[in-house]
């Protein structure tokens, strides 16, 4: 096993300024996350808004400083690396941002956008036209697109430009933040197929952040489920889908409406709303919404424990057999 990226007990802490009557403090947007991304594999990070998925991704890409823990990329510690030392690594670790049009400068042509990484990395100005053509062809866009501006292309095309730009320098690790959010299903498929093809061709490792479980199921090898800044469960995608251990995972899987009016869904009703990260519940952080919570869950923090093919954080792991329950 050769982990390209090893994340160990990472904490990303933000200072919050107190309101008039409350004291200033800090919040842990990411609170002790550990996971490995293997070379050439896809790791999915799932969770609801505010669960810390994007913050974790940004910490790996060096856009947030991790306060604790370690982030090892090919054995090299990224935490605390100065900006100057990080820059060469940005050839290998690239991030694709959420808003496809918003992340492209409206004043630059597609050609300038996708060849910008060469300039930033101080690479010799080779034949940029040829590079632009190569990159456009790679993501399946015609060469004429080089002369267009972001407002002249559709959302799906903008994402392709985003992929071309991210992959311009042949990185080893691509971090994709919600690469299909807001896309129609027919275009979502194209985007995911493109990523899968490029992964095979370039031997790319992908860390994909999404709340869409259907996407995760098809394209990831491993998956981690986040809740309030912590991983509640992690493991091989197939195993997690077949036998979720943590009740939150189970609830997420059950909350995934199927395009079939007769689907007999096993519903797990969550009570209430996700708590504020400013007021973390005591004990297991999920116990306030957990349908299976016991007295112990309110007082004792569950340990991160290994299970078959993965790990989870629950006193009473469900070990639900989703296939058996559905039939």
């Amino acid at each position, binding site marked *: 096993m050769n982990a390209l990226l090893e994340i160990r007990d990472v904490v990303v802490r933000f200072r919050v300024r107190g309101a008039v009557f409350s004291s200033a403090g800090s919040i842990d947007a990411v609170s002790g996350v550990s996971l490995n991304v293997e070379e050439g594999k896809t790791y999915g990070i799932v969770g609801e808004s505010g669960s810390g998925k994007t913050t974790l991704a940004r910490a790996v890409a060096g856009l947030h400083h991790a306060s604790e823990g370690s982030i090892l990329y090919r054995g090299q510690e990224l935490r605390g690396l100065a900006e100057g030392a990080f820059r060469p690594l940005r050839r290998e670790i690239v991030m694709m941002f959420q808003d496809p049009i918003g992340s492209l400068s409206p004043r630059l042509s597609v050609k300038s956008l996708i060849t910008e990484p060469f300039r930033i990395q101080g690479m010799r100005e080779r034949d940029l036209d040829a590079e632009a053509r190569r990159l456009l062809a790679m993501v399946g866009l015609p060469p004429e697109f080089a002369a267009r501006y972001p407002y002249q292309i559709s959302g799906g095309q903008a994402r392709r430009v985003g992929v071309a730009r991210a992959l311009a320098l042949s990185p080893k690790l691509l971090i994709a933040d919600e690469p299909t959010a807001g896309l129609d299903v027919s275009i979502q498929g194209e985007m995911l197929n493109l990523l899968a093809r490029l992964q095979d061709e370039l031997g790319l490792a992908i860390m994909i952040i999404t709340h869409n479980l259907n996407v995760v199921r*098809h394209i990831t090898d491993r998956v981690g489920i986040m809740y309030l800044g912590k991983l509640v469960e992690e493991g091989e995608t197939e195993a997690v889908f077949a036998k979720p251990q943590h009740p939150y995972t189970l609830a997420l899987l059950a909350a995934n409406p199927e395009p*079939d009016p007769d689907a007999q869904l096993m*519903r797990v009703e969550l009570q209430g709303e996700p708590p504020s990260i400013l007021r973390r519940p005591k004990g297991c952080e999920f116990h306030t919404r957990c349908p299976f919570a016991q007295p112990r869950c309110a007082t004792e923090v569950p340990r991160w424990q290994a299970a078959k093919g993965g790990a989870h954080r629950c006193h009473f792991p469900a070990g639900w057999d989703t296939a058996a329950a559905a039939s």
Partner: protein
Amino acid sequence: MAVLDIRGLSVGYSTPRGELRALRDVSMMVPEGKIVGIVGESGCGKSTLISAIIRLMAPNARVGAGEVRFQGRDLLAETEAQMRALRGTQISMVFQDPMQTHNPVLTVGRQMMDIQYRERLSRAEKRQRAERMLALVGIPDPEARLNQYPFEFSGGMRQRIAIAMALMAKPALLIADEPTTALDATLEVQIIKRLRELQDEIGCGVLFISHHLGVIAELCDEVVVMYAGEVVETGSVRDVFHAPAHPYTRALLECDPGHIKVKTRALPTIPGNIPDLVNLPGGCIFADRCERRHAACAARPTMALAGDGHRAACHLITERETA
């Protein structure tokens, strides 16, 4: 009887390139007490259709033809004052983004009382109704919550408050425009369940717009599939999802990764793009992306009966019958 009955509606936008024909000959209806889903991808005309129903159209929009009958009255012929009297009382709406639907500087209670301005009730009675409505959509401790401002509620709660406000006047028709897209999966399920319960209780017709096929399948009684400004298929959810009659509907369902049980790295897609609505191709609107295109597709198909109450605009249906 149908609460809403749209017949032959065409709407265009004038653009520098010429008229963009956003809706063409659209007919559909919402029967009393039913939930009808409209499903379609970006650019299919969902939003134009809603804005035409409530007559809040962009300044460059123009209705070319058709009728929008609401309880028998043609809304397109009503005066602006008559429309204003309908909106919020007989027809109400829930919008996509719950973070922006409320006034940030007024308490939720104040807003919920204000919208009852037409009722001849005392302040105390209005407050009581507001409280009851909040309880109904599952907001705990409603009395105290009425004194809070929108920012003190989470997104899921705000959307439930929006639903409570929309249903307060017991409208005959509720239009919900992608009300769950901005919410997380577990909250989406809560909202859908709540909407279903309230609709049962109030008995209003609901027009539910979504691009999420799973949500439509779970919530709706009937579904209208739109593509590039036309209705291509209508029917009960069961018929349309189990036996889609239009190739577009079939392709759309196949593309939904939720439909594919076996893990795959090659997801199905619909090749090609939606046609340019300024320079429309002749014939069937889906023809150049359709797997089953044939000679007949050069002519525009009409809605044909594919089963009991199940219609689709495809030549294959009539051809199958005559063959």
